[in-house]
């Protein structure tokens, strides 16, 4: 993985000291809150309901063992012994003190991490496929491009005060595991018949109160011309995006109001004028970046392992875990392990410092010192030998990390909701816990199959409810929490917007309604159909009748 050079170290360390000075000036009163707020936000520091919240970037979701150990140490030293992994492949601490945040940033810098541009109207932490570099269905590893985008966008003077926040995702597999089409800009890897590598470019996706699915603006941009094209796209947005109304300031609104063709024309004109040789990285620099992301040298092993087979036969939990949480690897005899952070009754995305240390140690001992954070709020061991799975399962199980529900309905995306967030209207976590309790039966979950449930505590959609096969949106109904069900969304390569089913429910009513929806699916499905497939085939009416006319 990428290692900082002297420039990176100097840049990040300088930022730590700059923020230390800003905090001191704020505490002394030299800076007002109004002056300080944008400065702290550019360093990932929010003020939430109970305390400050620090959002730390995990660029393109990649970590090593030492970095996760440091994240665990920070949780113990400055916070309350846990962290929350988010849908943007970041980690959030919920209780840091303002006076200590410069020290936290210094600790992060010591392992080549930071909180730069995890908030504010700038280009945020770039995200990617959490199986990047390991997935069998991958065309090529897009993390070098993620790193290139990180370097290009960090402190970019022209794009530090955009009309609104800006999210870029890049992925290289045939299956979309990065919710590409829900991003401001998304890059899907393509290899031409000639062997030339590049990207299909999407623009204008986003959730929030006005959900849009991104559209293709360019069928192909060669990988060595990517940054100049991004620069042209951002430049047009920066100049034409609305700044008079924050709810209409995202690029999705600009593309919608201009029309894709007009926006594309403006971008192409801008692109034609750019001095690309001064923007795109030289070939030598690209090759330097690629070298950091060379795949680990893995011994090709047998695809059969007697010990694994025996344990799967003897231990049904291990068998289900193999079925749900293990994915194919590029190299025979190896697997990708998803560590679910969705224990039934737990809090989605939360990990204690002890759990983080265990996972960090597992990555060092069994996964080439590499880890990933998924946008679905789970952790990934990307390079595990098949023969090591029994040992890993045993260690995860002892730490409460062996929940075998990856991709099942209890593997929910859940925002922090009103339990932590000052913007939320309703709590998300208790509802997710009630759903998990109602469906706490692995055989039933397996029977239901792939089902993406996504819960947001407000219209800002941090819980991705628009992209849920079943989405749930919390609203404030005259001071009382209320939840709307949405059906038919997808964050995958078949991206679609979920549609509100009808009037909302209280917490218990929502769980009942959800169960009725699933009963309709189970009664109506054809062989091999996922919930989403059945919904698309039969439409919303049978679900509506089951929920409202029972």
């Amino acid at each position, binding site marked *: 993985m990428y290692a900082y050079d002297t420039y990176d170290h100097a840049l990040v360390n300088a930022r730590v000291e700059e923020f230390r000075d800003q905090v001191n000036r704020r505490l002394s009163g030299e800076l007002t809150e109004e002056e300080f707020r944008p400065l702290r936000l550019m360093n990932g520091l929010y003020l939430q309901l109970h305390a400050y919240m620090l959002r730390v970037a995990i660029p393109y979701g990649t970590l090593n063992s030492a970095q996760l150990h440091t994240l665990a140490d920070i949780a113990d030293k400055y916070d309350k012994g846990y962290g929350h992994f988010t849908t943007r492949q970041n980690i959030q601490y919920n209780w840091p003190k303002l006076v200590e945040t410069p020290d936290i940033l210094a600790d992060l810098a010591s392992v080549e991490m930071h909180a730069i541009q995890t908030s504010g109207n700038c280009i945020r932490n770039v995200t990617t496929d959490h199986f990047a570099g390991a997935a069998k269905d991958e065309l090529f590893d897009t993390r070098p491009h993620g790193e290139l985008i990180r370097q290009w966008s960090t402190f970019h003077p022209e794009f530090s005060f955009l009309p609104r926040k800006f999210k870029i995702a890049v992925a290289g597999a045939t299956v979309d595991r990065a919710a590409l089409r829900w991003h401001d800009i998304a890059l899907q890897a393509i290899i031409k018949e000639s062997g030339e590598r590049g990207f299909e470019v999407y623009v204008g996706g986003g959730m929030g109160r006005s959900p849009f699915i991104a559209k293709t603006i360019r069928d192909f941009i060669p990988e060595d011309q990517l940054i100049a094209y991004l620069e042209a796209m951002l430049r047009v947005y920066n100049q034409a995006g609305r700044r008079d109304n924050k709810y209409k300031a995202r690029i999705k609104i600009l593309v919608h109001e201009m029309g894709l063709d007009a926006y594309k024309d403006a971008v192409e004109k801008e692109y034609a004028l750019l001095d690309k040789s001064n923007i795109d990285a030289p070939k030598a620099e690209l090759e330097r970046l690629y070298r950091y992301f060379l795949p680990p040298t893995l011994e090709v092993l047998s695809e059969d392992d007697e010990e694994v087979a025996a344990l799967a036969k003897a231990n049904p939990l291990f068998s289900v875990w193999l079925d749900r949480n293990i994915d194919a690897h590029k190299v025979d005899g190896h697997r990708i392990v998803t560590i679910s952070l969705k224990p039934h009754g737990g*809090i989605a995305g939360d990990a204690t410092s002890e759990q983080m240390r265990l996972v960090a140690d597992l990555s060092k001992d069994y996964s080439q010192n590499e880890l990933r954070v998924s946008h679905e709020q789970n952790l990934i061991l990307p390079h595990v030998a098949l023969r090591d799975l029994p040992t890993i399962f045993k260690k995860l199980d002892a730490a409460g990390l062996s929940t075998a529900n990856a991709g099942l309905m209890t593997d929910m995306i859940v925002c922090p909701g009103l339990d932590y967030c000052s913007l939320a209207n309703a709590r998300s976590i208790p509802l997710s816990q009630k759903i998990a309790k109602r469906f706490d039966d692995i055989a039933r979950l397996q029977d239901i199959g792939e089902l993406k449930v996504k819960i947001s505590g407000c219209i800002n959609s941090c819980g991705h409810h628009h992209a849920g096969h079943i989405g749930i949106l919390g609203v404030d109904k005259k001071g009382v929490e209320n939840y709307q069900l949405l059906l038919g969304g997808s964050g995958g390569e078949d991206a679609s917007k979920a549609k509100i089913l009808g009037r909302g429910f209280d917490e218990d009513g929502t769980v009942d309604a959800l169960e009725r929806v699933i009963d309709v699916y189970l009664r109506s499905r054809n062989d091999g159909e996922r919930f989403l497939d059945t919904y698309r085939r039969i439409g919303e009416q049978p679900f509506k009748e089951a929920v409202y006319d029972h």
Partner: protein
Amino acid sequence: MAKKSEGPQIIIANRLDDGRVVFLSKAGGWSVTLNNAVQADNPEQLKALLETAVKSVDANIIVSPEPIDAALSGGGAFFEPSHIKYKIQSQGPTVRPDLGYQAADIKQAGTA
């Protein structure tokens, strides 16, 4: 900005240096204990409390002061914010009662 309210209100804020939730207290300072909050029963009293809060903002003690509806419950034994948001802000996350700054204080005061 004061919200329209016909009932009693108190002032909630976050402490600048550590972000901790605090309440404008009877003693004129900022207390981490909800029950120490001073109550405004009419617009004039609320205006006076907000003026005190603004002085505390200017003195870099607190940020984001906000009046919230909170009536005395339990026969006058303890304050209870009327909106769930402020109940949670006062007591901590409902899903982690072991963590909220206020949980221990409220328990100590016999109100939870």
